[in-house]
Every structure is written in C-alpha cells, then in structure tokens.
C-alpha cells in the first residue's frame, strides 16, 4: 500500500542553491548575477506570456481566446453585477464542507485501518476499487441519491477527496517506528493514548501530504458538481458563460476558481506551520542512527 502515497514532501531540498555560495570558490562570485536572474525569470516569463496573449487575443475572434485586459474588465463587471462574490462563497462553502468531511472521515478511517489489521483487510478491497474507479462516473448516481442541491455537491467533493486522506493517514500510522510503540508499552499508554500521543502525531506529515492531493481532487469535485449537478457557484458561472460564448467572463470565473484553490493551499500551510512546527524536522531516530 505504501507505494500509493504520492508526493511525500516531508523534507525540503530547496536550500541547495543558497548553500553553494558558502564554498567561497571564485565560481561563486560569477554565480551571483545568474542568481538574481533566476529570481526575476518567473516574473519575466509571466509578463511575456500575458503580453503575447494580449497581442494574439486582440487579433483573433474574442470567442476563441479573449485578452487579459477584457478578462480583467469582465472580472470587474461580474463583481459590480453582484455575480462573482456570491458564486465565490458558494464555491468555498461546497469545497470546505466536502473537503472538511473528507478530512474527518479520511483520518478516522485511516487510523482505524492503521491500528487494526482486521479493519485493514476488510476495507482494503474498497480502497483499491475506488482508487482505480473514475469517480466522476458516479455523479449521476449522486444526483439520484442526493438530488441537485448543496448535499449532492458536497457528496461529489467528498467522494473525490476522501481516498487520498485515508491512504496517507493509514501509511503514516503504520510507519510509526517500533521504538515509539515500545515506549508506549513501557509507559502503559492506553489504546486511545497510543493513537492520540504516538501514532496520530507520527502520521501528521503524511496526512498533510495527503491533504494537498485531496484538496486538488476536492476542487475538481466541487467544480464538476457546480457545473453538472446544480449549475451554481463558480462552476455554474463558467458553464453559463461558456454556453453563451462569453470567453472573457468564462476565464474570469476560471481564475477565481484558481484563487479558491490557492487560498486552500495557503490555509493548509498556515495550519501546518502554526500547529505542527515539527513537521519536516528530523526525528531523533534519523539523527542518531547511522
């Protein structure tokens, strides 16, 4: 099961180019301008692409591409018409209720599977099945069960997101070093204390890696549900403007959906840094053993 955990960004190797300067070799000095260049390259890249988009977009049919400037003005129009803000909040609500449920249910299930081999054996076939199934195909079934309202959108969001949370929590709980389990035995921790004080904290880095993946999937679920189930929120805006060939408005909706995603990532990182500052730090095991 371990091979199914994607993107374990527990340790960061991003310091490499900062460190190279300390070597003090003449080469380091000639690196300096290129380092500044590296820093502004992303900005330059984005500006160039926006410029090209403006150039090309203003020369072809606006239905095909539109331009950055008209996308921005569409954005302004949608706000002043009172369309975008409510749609944004609908999207946020759909996303966070669905994703929130996925977090709670996913962690609980993952812990259960991690602590009990019986639970693991019972649940494993379903986890495998749903991991492999294109869950979007279940949307019509969700509509049959839940109708076309808020509950259905939450259900789609939840169903897409929950599996990554379950699997990463499970692997995190299972990866608890045996020495820490020994510690729990020696100090006579109760079954609940073993989970709350040892295995669950041990799983936190894995859980956050899973939440990053699950957030992406929840975003997709939320948008699909708003496009296909209710035609509301940001997904609804995108669908409607697409159907009426108003590309600038459609793109403004898409970019607002990106903002929803970016806010989600920022929130996850804030929670991680505020409440779990030790995530990513070397554990005593790794430091002392060789």
């Amino acid at each position, binding site marked *: 099961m371990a091979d199914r955990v994607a993107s374990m960004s527990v340790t960061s190797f991003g310091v490499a180019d900062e460190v190279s300067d300390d070597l003090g070799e003449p080469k380091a000095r000639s690196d300096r301008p290129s380092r500044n260049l590296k820093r502004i390259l992303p900005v330059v890249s984005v500006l160039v692409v926006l410029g090209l988009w403006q150039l090309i977009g203003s020369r072809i049919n606006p239905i095909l591409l539109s331009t950055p400037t008209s996308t921005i003005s569409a954005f302004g129009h949608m706000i002043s018409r009172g369309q975008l803000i409510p749609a944004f909040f609908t999207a946020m609500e759909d996303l966070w209720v669905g994703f929130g449920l996925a977090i709670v249910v996913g962690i609980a299930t993952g812990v259960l599977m991690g602590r009990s081999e019986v639970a693991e054996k019972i649940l494993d076939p379903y986890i495998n099945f749903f991991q492999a199934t294109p869950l979007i195909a279940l949307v019509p079934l969700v509509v049959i069960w839940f109708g076309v309202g808020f509950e259905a959108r939450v259900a789609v969001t939840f169903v897409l997101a929950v599996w990554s949370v379950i699997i990463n929590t499970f692997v995190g709980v299972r990866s608890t*070093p045996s*020495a*820490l389990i*020994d*510690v729990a*035995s*020696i*100090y*006579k*921790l109760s079954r609940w*204390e073993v989970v709350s*004080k*040892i295995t669950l*904290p041990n799983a*936190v880095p894995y859980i956050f890696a899973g939440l990053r993946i699950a957030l992406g999937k929840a975003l997709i679920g939320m948008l699909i549900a708003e496009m296909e189930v209710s035609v509301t929120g940001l997904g609804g805006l995108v669908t409607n403007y697409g159907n009426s060939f108003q590309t600038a408005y459609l793109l403004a909706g898409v970019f607002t959906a990106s903002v929803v995603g970016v806010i989600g990532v920022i929130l996850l990182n804030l929670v991680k840094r505020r409440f*779990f*500052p*030790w995530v990513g*730090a*070397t*554990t*005593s*095991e790794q*430091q*002392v*053993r*060789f």
Partner: protein
Amino acid sequence: MEAPVIEVSHVGKRFWQGKSGAFIALKDVSFNVGKGEFISIIGASGCGKTTLLRMFGGLTTYDAGSIKIRGSVVRGVPDRIGFVFQAAALLPWRSVWDNIALGLTAVKGVLSESEKRSRVDAQIELTGLKGFEQSLPHQLSGGMQQRVGLARALVAEPSVLLMDEPLGALDAFTRMRLQEELAAIVARTEATTVFVTHDVDEAVFLSDRIIVMERAPGRVNQIVTVPFDKPRVRREFIGDPKVAHIRDEVLALVTEELLSRASTTETAFRT
C-alpha cells in the same frame, strides 16, 4: 541476605524463521540481580542481550524458564520499571519537558498536577537539561537527547532501570562524559540497573558485575565481578592495574568467543 530483585532461571527463547527452522536466541540463561546492583550484559551481536533486556521490560516474551521481578513472574510490562532505549526514542513532536512527562503516564491519577510538575523539573535539573525544557528533540545533540531518554525513564522513580545500549550511538567524548554522569545519577536513585552494552570499558567502569554472553545459541558465558567501590573516578580508575586486569579478562572472554566463531556464518539478529 535480601531477596534478589530480578531472578532469571533457565530462560530460553527461539525465533521461527521460515524453512530454516528455529533460531535459538537464548538458551538456559540463569542469574540473579540484587537490590541496588548495577549489572552490565555484554556480548557480540546476536548473543541475545537486547532480547533478554526486552524480556525484563515485558516487551518480548520468553518460551522457557522464568523471569521474576520483585518476586512476581514477568507477564507484560512490570510496574515501576524505567527503560532507556538505544536511540533515545523521543517523540519528535513533543518538547523536552513533555517527553519527560510521558514517563509519568502510568502513575497519573496518583500524582497531583503540581507534584507531577515538580518531579519533571527535578529530573531536568538532575540530568542537566535546564534551559532546554521547551526545545524539540531534533534541536538537541545525540547526547542531550539521551539525557532526555534517561530523565523520562527516571521520572516515575522506578526501582528497576533497564538500559539498552543508551550511549552506543554517541561519539567517544560525549560517551565518556555521559558514563560518569550516568553513574552518579543512577547511584542517587538507588535503582537496580541492567545495562546492555558492547563496550568493555563502559561495562567495567559502570558495573558491579558483568554478564558476558556468547551467541548461537545466546547463553551466559561467565559472570565477572568488578569489586571496586563507587563512586568511581575515571582518572584513578583507568590507571589501576587491578581494573586493567578485569578489563583484559572481560575482553578476552568476548574476543575469544568471537575468534573461535570467526569462520561460522555471521548472524544478523538484533543485538
């Protein structure tokens, strides 16, 4: 004479490993440990010394003989024991203070919150961790981490202290300094101590008796007494020819066994 605190009689243990059949980890191991005694178990990798220590702590079962601690047969983790693990085994997400307080889990309810706090503070003082209470384990050196491991084991005031190569992963200088501190701290607690090590000098410096083990099957080769008063001062201790004699004796026992078995296949079991 007082009854021994730990009584080991004819203890045996085998591990089953697939087709190759059973590996005999321990065979007919017997010895006693008296109250307040400091004994070391020494031997090459695979002699079962850690397995034996884990049995005292109730972490591993045995399938022959009996182990008694304070008169009662060990089944599960005994009360009032402290265990110091090889690589400290601290919880990376807890501060030094909270890691030490974990040692009081088994006696919570008995102690009031303020008693608990003063116990942890006292351990921090005793193990030289003052000023590091709020540090996280990864911010500490290996030696400091092992001090936390020791404080956690001592905070519940155990009458039996079990240590599994606690200094094994440290550099030579840190190791020597911690040996002295360890001796002083343990002497103050008056706990009966079993100390697993693969370092002959360490065993001689710390112990009242040294149990030298052989491997394949793991068994007691000889028990060597170190008849010198404590506290011991390293500088005087090292120069003493009588100490050197004992050291050579233990070293000979360990290496003789190693040499005689040099041709046999290397066993790859946890020590």
